């Protein structure tokens, strides 16, 4: 499985178009009470930040798999990094997408 190289965590920026698209998907699919534009690019998605729980993460994994052809796996060493923020998720998808 591909994973984020450490260097990517410090990549200058994630694709803003992809981030916007992801923010829209997250709020629509998870029925969140937040306008997509309010999701801060660097705030954690899980737990405190956006407040997603494990049910959401599983739903989100399905959306990401369908939409971008990226399968998430727990044995990704960088799982906490991937959901660490919207921009990290966008970078991960940009590097691993198959569609």
């Amino acid at each position, binding site marked *: 499985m591909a994973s984020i190289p450490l260097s990517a965590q410090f990549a200058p920026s994630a694709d803003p178009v992809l981030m916007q698209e992801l923010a829209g998907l997250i709020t629509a699919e998870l029925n*969140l*009470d937040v306008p997509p534009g309010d999701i801060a690019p660097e705030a954690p998605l899980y737990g405190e930040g956006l*407040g997603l729980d*494990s*049910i959401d993460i*599983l739903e989100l*994994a399905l959306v990401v*798999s369908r939409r971008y052809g990226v399968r998430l*796996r727990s044995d990704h060493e960088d799982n906490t990094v991937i959901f660490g923020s919207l921009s990290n998720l966008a970078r991960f998808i940009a590097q691993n997408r198959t569609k």
Partner: protein
Amino acid sequence: MASAPLIAAPAGLAHVAWCDGRPVSAAQYLADAAHLAALLPERRHVLNACANRYRFAVGLGAALLRAQVTLLPPNHTSETVRWLREFAADAYVLTDDAQAAIDLPRLEFPESPASAPAAPGVPEIDEQQLCAIVFTSGSTGAPVPNRKHWGALVRNVRGALARLGLSAARPAAILGTVPPQHMYGFESTVLAALQGGGALCAERPFYPSDVCAALERLPRPRLLVTTPFHLRALLDDVAQPPPAELLLCATAPLSAELARRAEARFGAELLEIYGCTETGQIATRNTAREAEWRTLPGVQVELRDGRAWASGGHVEERTAIGDVIEVLAPDRFLLHGRISDMVNVAGKRSSLEFLNAQLLAIEGVIDGVFYMPDDDTPGGITRLRAFVVAPGLDREQLLARLRERIDAAFLPRPLVLLERLPRAPSGKLPREALRALAHAHARNGKT
């Protein structure tokens, strides 16, 4: 004094677990449990928070050997842990996560002894010994303890295993997507393995690809212990899952359509389990083919005083059932949904009364109510809504306070701040008014 063995498999012969792809013998399990038992502090109550299913099982065995009681609360929020300290002042936490933030004296799960000593005999545990206290959320705010004695638990699990056709003669590899701390996972993965049903997989896979990879590694016959939510996610994501012999599903109603899809794709039989924390597992059905539930050996259901009750078999005392059921015969029934105060989100059960009490206990909340919409999507998760009057607080502050008190699954979506609630002159909140409010504040057309 009657007793039942800690494990039903003949020591040294059978495997009780698979850890990281390696089999763990019954003898090794007994050695690990004895080793840990010697390290447990002189206390009576242990919160077993081990995420690894094998370590959880070792912790359970060690506690039984030392006559300590395993505490199984519905979650580990700071409010629940604070309450546990009040319930049992000597409680400590056994954990395999160095980062776990649980405010109790802690014992880190130790390294396994280098080699298993010569096979010790299988310890017998008194049937009357208190094995676990499983907590449900009560209506007033305090969790309600449900005491589980060893003999009743063993009878329950052996009855379920007989129904599944599993035994020491036909052991399965057991993979669970539910945690061992949840009553369903506790019975159908941990106790099922210890009582002769097979070997539990220590890892708990999360993503659909993880579940498939974990199944693939296990020998057949394979038993997958899961929920409608996990099952739907897996079938939506994976075209061809590895074959399994048996699927178990519980925690929320499963549709016949999803059951048929699961049976076809896995090439397995699917049994749905009905039960609750208070009674344990009491009935099964083959959801793809039948609507009727059949009770486990000796268990009877009846209607009395307008409520449904279960008794007999492993059910220690006559117990009210939190759902509306139609009794066809003492051992057969139909299920017609939950009693309106009860809510179930992803297998976590609570009562609206409890959740409302938690909301109102937050400083600055003047009025507030949780609302569960009707439109359950089969296999999907319907979330609670909340309407709150709290002039000095914003949404984020309220959610942060709630997160300390209730399980994340029950956090409201949306949480709507209002100037006042549409209370009738009697002070009651008509469900119609709440439905209209939910509709007015819906996103994506969902109410």
